[in-house]
């Protein structure tokens, strides 16, 4: 029950709430921002309770960032001096604020629990990596670290408890591009200045630019690269291995991974990778150590599957970017290796159960469409799902990448465990459904039906040759099956080619012309945020 005092204040101050303003035609979310930027004139008023929740979460994240600096003051300072990407982390707070605009009640609470899990993990990782980065002088753990490709799930490395797997591209590229849309174009330009074609995937072009610019931290004694998820990603590894100049082992898992013949090959490839690490680092693989972490991953995946049951209903306070970003980081980067994420999952599922019991309708019950987001998303517009929710009432129920490896890993039998890990790893980020054959892409309709979606938003990465190759087939399928279907063009990490505004216009055009609907918040329909982080 609501506190009468806060209820009274909320009533008095309701005109400050952008949701109320939009509903009453006197403003909305965009009004509090300076034109062209992501800089807000004032914080969002969400009512007493939710504003406090939001502000305390802000303080909590500030604490984590402070701890990061306190843990490694000199390396962090050197890192800011050495690496262009370090400066972009200053945009983290603005990033979090824009992700959760319009969030209230349990959806806000869960979102911040999720985000803090990421922030506390990432800040520790930054401090750890910079403290042991050879470019910055190295540290005691430098040779115990194992740099590995960010899209190679690191869970199997838990069998080396004395080693620290570090997804190499995560800090300079994979995460930071979500925070600052202006960063990666610089690295893309660096890569193109060396002759790389401008039509390759911008994510991989950016990775190549980071490589050329010597902006990867130098850690470890050997490098694990991978063929995941796709062609350009494979190709960019060629440069990374040369520039990093460490012995490397490409963990090339099956591309067509939905066939029985694929798994024995991928299993053997993981065995080969383990052998490579044993030889390079002089460590013995410890299955019990793996089992301990696999139990965490299994629990997280068990909870994830329960969450999916709630996603199928109208009463899930978890959706959109809050769901996507946490699952992406928790699966791809943490991958069962941090207890904190299991604890967060346990808390979140309790909230979700309660919400379901109470038939709680999130986002003020204003959801008009339930959408499945398919295809790799534009990372320079992480808050796109928040915008679809606030502007048009389109809830992103689930994102393609959230369906990544959710099979259970054996925690007793090494033979079975490595087979399970192979299947688990084959279905990695941007890979489970984006590559490996038509059936994987075409699965979207089953997923959408299963989650009671009436709409599919198809992320149309203009440089993704694989997804471009099924363009018309997808459109024809959507027509045949009667889904609302919108291609949302984007250029993954290059906001100059297709801006956030252009992406919004893809949805605006469909919603106004085809669906003939009115926006929930007219201030969000068309605005310029080209200069924002």
């Amino acid at each position, binding site marked *: 029950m609501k506190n009468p005092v806060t209820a009274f204040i909320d009533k008095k101050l309701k005109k400050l709430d952008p949701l109320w303003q939009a509903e009453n035609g006197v403003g909305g979310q965009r009004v509090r921002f300076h034109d062209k930027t992501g800089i807000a004139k004032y914080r969002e008023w969400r009512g007493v309770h939710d504003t406090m929740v939001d502000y305390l979460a802000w303080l909590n994240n500030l604490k984590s960032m402070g701890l990061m600096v306190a843990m490694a003051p000199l390396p962090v300072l050197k890192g800011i001096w050495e690496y262009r990407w370090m400066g972009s982390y200053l945009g983290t707070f603005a990033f979090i604020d824009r992700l959760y605009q319009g969030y209230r009640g349990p959806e806000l609470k869960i979102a911040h629990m999720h985000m803090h899990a990421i922030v506390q993990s990432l800040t520790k990782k930054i401090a750890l990596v910079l403290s042991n980065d050879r470019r910055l002088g190295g540290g005691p753990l430098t040779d115990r670290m194992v740099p590995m490709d960010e899209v190679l799930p690191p869970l199997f490395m838990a069998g080396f408890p004395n080693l620290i797997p570090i997804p190499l591209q995560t800090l300079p590229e994979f995460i930071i591009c979500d925070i600052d849309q202006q960063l990666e174009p610089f690295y893309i330009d660096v890569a193109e200045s060396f002759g790389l074609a401008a039509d390759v995937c911008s994510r991989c072009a950016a990775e190549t630019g980071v490589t050329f610019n010597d902006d990867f931290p130098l850690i470890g004694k050997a490098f694990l690269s991978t*063929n995941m998820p796709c*062609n350009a990603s494979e190709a960019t590894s060629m440069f990374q291995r040369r520039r990093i100049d460490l012995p490397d082992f490409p963990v090339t898992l*099956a591309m067509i991974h939905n066939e029985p013949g694929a798994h024995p090959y991928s299993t053997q490839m993981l065995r080969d990778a383990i052998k490579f690490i044993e030889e390079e680092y002089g460590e013995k693989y410890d299955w019990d150590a793996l089992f301990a972490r696999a139990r965490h991953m299994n629990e997280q995946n068990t909870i994830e599957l329960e969450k999916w049951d709630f996603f199928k209903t109208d009463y899930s306070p978890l959706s959109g970017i809050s769901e996507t970003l946490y699952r992406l980081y928790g699966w791809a980067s943490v991958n069962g290796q941090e207890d904190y994420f299991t604890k967060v999952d346990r808390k979140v599922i309790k909230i979700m159960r309660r919400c379901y019991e109470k038939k709680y309708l999130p986002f003020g019950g204003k959801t008009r469409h339930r959408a499945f987001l398919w295809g790799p998303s534009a990372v320079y517009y992480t808050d796109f799902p928040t915008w679809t929710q606030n502007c048009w009432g389109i809830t992103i129920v689930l994102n393609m990448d959230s369906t990544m490896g959710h099979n259970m890993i054996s925690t007793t039998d090494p033979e079975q465990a490595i087979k399970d890990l192979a299947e688990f790893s084959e279905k990695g980020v941007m890979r489970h459904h984006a590559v490996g054959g038509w059936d994987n892409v075409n699965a979207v309709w089953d997923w959408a039906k299963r989650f009671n979606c009436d709409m599919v938003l198809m992320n149309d990465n203009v440089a993704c040759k694989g997804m471009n190759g099924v363009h018309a*087939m997808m459109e024809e399928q959507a027509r045949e099956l009667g889904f609302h279907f919108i291609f949302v063009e984007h250029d993954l990490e290059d906001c100059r080619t297709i801006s956030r505004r252009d992406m919004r216009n893809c949805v605006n055009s469909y919603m106004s012309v085809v669906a003939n609907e009115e926006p929930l918040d007219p201030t969000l329909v068309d605005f310029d945020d080209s200069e924002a982080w």
Partner: protein
Amino acid sequence: MKDLRHLIYFENLLQEANNELVSQAVDEGKLALGYNCYYIPEVLLNLPGCFSSRLRAPRCQSADVATYYMTNRNCPYVRSILERAIEGGYNYLSALFGAEGCAAMERMEEHFFLLNPVKNDRFFVTIIDPPMKEDQTSLDYYKAQLKLKVVDAMHEKLGVDTSEEAMRQAVAEFNELCDIITEIGNFRKLPNPPITGYEFHVIQLVSQACPHYLILPYLRETLEEIRTREPEPKFPFRARIILAGSEIDDPDFTKLVESCGAMVVADRYCFGSFPSRERIEIAEGETAFEAIARHYLHWNQCARFMAGDKIDQRHTELKRLVDEFQADGVVYESMKFCEFWSYEKVLASHVLQNELGVPCCTIEKEYALGSVGQLRTRFQAFVESLEIKQIQAKEAGR
């Protein structure tokens, strides 16, 4: 030089995928088996009763329908192939053996079963998942994929004899073809070759686009002719270059390069003879199938290989060709929208120029040779730069 007797005939054969010899072979009851990529061993598609047909879309001027399906942001080669299929240009095929060599290729091959453009009741498609390394694990996977999706599919769906004896026969016939093409190609090593790069390109292409048993007699005759052919009194080109990179199946592209003054002395690209015309040697205790898989994985120089030894092989092999064919430089090309070769082009040009001392010019091309003005300017400038280097080298030697 006197014109090669069969050159015009060969050129005419390249005007259609379903050319005169292909039609003849189909009429004789042979099974036409299509493929796009070196990962599919050509020799396997030439088992008794079958013949290989590496898919081309000659004279493709627009790929509008395929562009609708695959967008205009995708590889023009795959769009042209799909367009030609939709036009009915491959109705002679009994099967397409695809390889997930790249995403665009795989998607194009998928449209062969999604749209059913090939009007042939027997027609089917399989797509292998080719490995990206040459280690034992990758070789085992490659063998398993070829066995399941090529050999067993041919046997079970088309009734092809895939026995050891049949494979050894196919290898022997294939080796004869390779020997002829290699001998013809080796004339390009001479200071004043009795063959041009364009002529060789035509000969190499007909060997891939026509049934081997029907084209072999012509190739034998051509070899004999070249053995005694009088070259021009003086080497007619200003430089010798190697053409390297992604897919080129239009000999007019080689003609364009040569019209700018550079003879193409070696062809290291998809559809070229490096790799594709190396003899298959069956080692002691090895089955023919094992030898084929080992051979194709070893010689494959696709830009998708990720292991260090295979990446290095691409560059050392090119350097070997530069030395053996006395090339002055390399033109490295990539098809527009080709991810792999776009990356490899950047790396290779760096390695060639800065580490191996080989001049290199990189270009990007469309599938159909349309407006070539810019390319011509690039090639002319490259030839001039090679000439300047030759002059400087001579002066330095004095």
